[in-house]
């Protein structure tokens, strides 16, 4: 089994208007291996995957699959029929159908649906993979993580030869990731070739056998995992030797303690209808703090309550000691609070508008729609922040949807920075973006704090929080269970606080 070549992509070329997304890229997958596909955003990973799955047609190149020369893949259906299954980062299932249907639709040839058989088959698989969902449940009523696992269950059930996992872990918590890895190893043992795309380096080193690195649409190389230490992988992805990650916090002031000046923002017994317990919270000028906890512990809900994004049910909010009423995002914005939401696709970006329009959007809302900015003003704002945040875009007029994920994130960040907020809330600003941009954003957070902005930063990666925050609020089961600062800011302290041990 080992070492037989399963899939060969040779000299793949793909251009979009204005972008040469893939240039002469080779990729080889052997059966029974887990192969990581790595690269920064915009490196061409997604494009390569989409060529392989028939979403895009390649301009040039050859795909050989399982001994068949030059297979034609024109649609996702073709790919499925050839035994290529894909689980995408964004859920690509239909929320209005049942779990079982989502697992079986678009497969097989039978014109009639046998519901009973489909449901019992689906239930069997769900049980086997230990997925907490019923076959007859409407998919939209499942949590995102469960939906993702249903997508994986579908792929697993298709007897695929090649399984593509495109950032499947970004919405899963640790347990679920472990479960997924177990599943991947089982599949690997049966000879399936798995292509694994992820931004989490730990995960790559935990499950993968080989790594292929792409950069700027070109192949950098293919490596055995044992031959490529982390630092080298990162430098290959970035195309430069990287300055030490752990160094960026060095010149940040330590948390000043309770007797420092008056808090910029202070909330007592704040709670919202999103199901969090009332909590107290404050932040001082120039402070960077963060909410941490497991996925679903209520960290996002807490900052949403601060911003008024969910319906606030009670609590007293003070800014600079004066009581204010924040009933909705607009009140929060008026009080100088800005919020960068977790899910940029849903809550943030308007894909068809240009970079410029997306950047000035919030400021325009505050100014009022009947007093538009002049074109010159708008361009000035946009250009300033494109430069400041190093946003990679063809021009200020490019539609945002054609930018890579990390750059979209920067556009939203620019939108809020333009408001010159006193207090900036960043909910998972680094999720699903590449290492280089992650560091850019972390650095930016620290710089802004130095200029006097107060920032709350949330990330699922604790390293990142430890590097940027001077105080961490720990949450468990929708309740604040602890606060860490100074010397307590260590990985193990966070873990034990989350776990609730001594």
């Amino acid at each position, binding site marked *: 089994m080992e070492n037989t070549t399963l899939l060969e992509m040779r000299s793949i070329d793909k251009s979009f208007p204005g972008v040469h997304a893939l240039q002469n890229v080779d990729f080889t997958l052997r059966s029974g291996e887990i192969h990581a596909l790595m690269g920064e955003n915009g490196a061409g990973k997604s494009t390569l995957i989409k060529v392989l799955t028939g979403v895009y047609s390649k301009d040039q190149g050859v795909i050989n699959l399982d001994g068949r020369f030059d297979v034609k893949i024109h649609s996702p259906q073709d790919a499925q029929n050839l035994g290529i299954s894909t689980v995408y980062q964004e859920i690509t*299932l239909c929320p209005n159908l049942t779990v079982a249907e989502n697992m079986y*639709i678009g497969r097989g040839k039978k014109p009639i649906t046998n519901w009973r058989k489909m449901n019992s088959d689906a239930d069997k698989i769900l049980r086997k993979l230990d997925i907490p969902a019923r076959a007859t449940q409407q998919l939209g009523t499942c949590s995102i993580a469960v939906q993702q696992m249903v997508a994986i269950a579908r792929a697993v059930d298709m007897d695929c030869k090649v399984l593509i996992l495109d950032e499947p872990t970004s919405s899963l918590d640790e347990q679920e990731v472990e479960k997924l890895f177990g599943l991947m190893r089982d599949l690997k043992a049966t000879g399936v070739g798995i292509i694994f795309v992820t931004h989490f380096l730990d995960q790559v080193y935990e499950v993968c056998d080989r790594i292929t690195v792409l950069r700027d649409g070109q192949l950098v190389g293919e490596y055995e995992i044992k031959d490529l230490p982390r630092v080298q992988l990162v430098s290959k992805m970035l195309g430069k030797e990287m300055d030490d990650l752990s160094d960026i916090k060095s010149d940040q002031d330590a948390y000043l303690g309770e007797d420092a000046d008056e808090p910029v923002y202070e909330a007592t017994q704040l709670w919202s209808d999103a199901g969090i317990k009332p909590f107290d919270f404050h932040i001082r000028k120039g402070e960077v703090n963060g909410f941490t906890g497991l996925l679903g512990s209520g960290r996002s809900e807490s900052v949403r309550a601060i911003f008024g994004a969910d319906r606030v049910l009670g609590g007293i909010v003070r800014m600079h000691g004066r009581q204010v009423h924040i009933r909705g995002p607009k009140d929060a914005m008026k009080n100088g609070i800005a919020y960068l939401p977790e899910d940029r696709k849903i809550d943030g970006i308007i894909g068809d508008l240009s970079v410029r329009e997306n950047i000035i959007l919030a400021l325009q809302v505050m100014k009022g729609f009947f007093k538009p900015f002049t074109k010159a003003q708008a361009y000035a704002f946009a250009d300033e922040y494109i430069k400041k945040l190093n946003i990679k875009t063809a021009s200020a007029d490019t539609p945002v949807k054609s930018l890579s994920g990390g750059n979209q994130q920067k556009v939203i960040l620019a939108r809020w920075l333009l408001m010159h907020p006193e207090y900036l809330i960043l909910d998972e600003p680094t999720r699903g973006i590449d290492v280089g941009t992650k560091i850019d954003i972390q650095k930016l957070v620290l710089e802004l704090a130095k200029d006097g902005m107060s920032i709350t930063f949330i990330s699922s990666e604790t390293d990142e929080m430890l590097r940027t925050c001077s105080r961490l609020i720990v949450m468990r089961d929708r309740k604040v269970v602890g606060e860490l600062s100074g010397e307590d800011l260590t990985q193990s302290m966070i873990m034990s606080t989350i776990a609730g041990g001594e």
Partner: protein
Amino acid sequence: MNKTKLKGGIFNRVSDTNLLLSITVVIFILMYLGAIIFLGSGFKKPQMLFNILNANAALIITACGMSLVMISGSIDISVGGVVALVSMCCAVYLDVNHHNGNVYVSMLIALGIGLAFGIIQGLLVAYLNIQPFIVTLAGMFFARGMTTIVSTAPFNVKNQAFDKLKLTRINVPGMGSYNKKGLYIPAYVEIGVLVALAVVVILFLVLRYTRLGRAFYAVGGNQQSALMLGVNVKRTKFLSHVFCGLLAGLGGYVYFLHVGSGAASHATGMEMNAIASSIIGGTMLTGGVGNVVGTLFGVLSLSTIQNIVSSAGLDQAWWTGITIAAMLCIFLLIQSIVIRQRKRALKR
């Protein structure tokens, strides 16, 4: 939120489609019971319900087609025009050779016209990616225009075979009533009602049990996802329009069978009634949710309210319009409240 725990409760177990369907059925029954209690008279007799069916068989058929395109996330506003065109063409054809046109051929004409509209509009929408609203708006104007070209004046049919078919009444056993003289008057339905009910049953089965039917829901739910799941999105969209066109043709014939004439002003606004019925029946304009059984009840609710309004002595067109508007609002309100409540319940 505990992600690993199953969320139970009947409320959360049913799908959006079934939830909306049950709301519609319950409201319809309450409304009808209310009419029997407070208005009495006609509503007490089962024939009232059958009359509603007789008068609305064509609407049931076209509304079913409408639901189908709406479930697929599209829309077809040409159906009223197609119904008028079908009536006119059939009327003119049956009159040829001294009122001797063949009834069966006229049926084929009706289905052919509907199919042609469905295919052309489907091609434009699915394969050329033109907005369905625009395409079918053009289709509507075209159909209305063609109707007038065929004949500007209304056209009454005098064809024996057709009249026989038109006047065929199917008695419903046990549902009749006695008149003042104690004479038993049997309850009856027209042929169109049987056709309409058959359409509802067949479409229900197609939507629930066939690969194609489920593809309609998938495409309406999330087109991009459906594509990724291996559904042929273009073909599915195309077929939804073909089905809708065909049903508009069939509905047109049933309409023609009920009124027995062709006129350019026939079925004015029928597409809007079809859309309203679908929505009342729990089909969402956003696609992916809906059911033809709901549509049947949607049509019944709509015409029952019209009957209630006229029985209550408010027999003017604007009253009917206003009540329908109010009813649409109430239905949509209930739908959105229920769906929102449920989302909120699931969040916890």
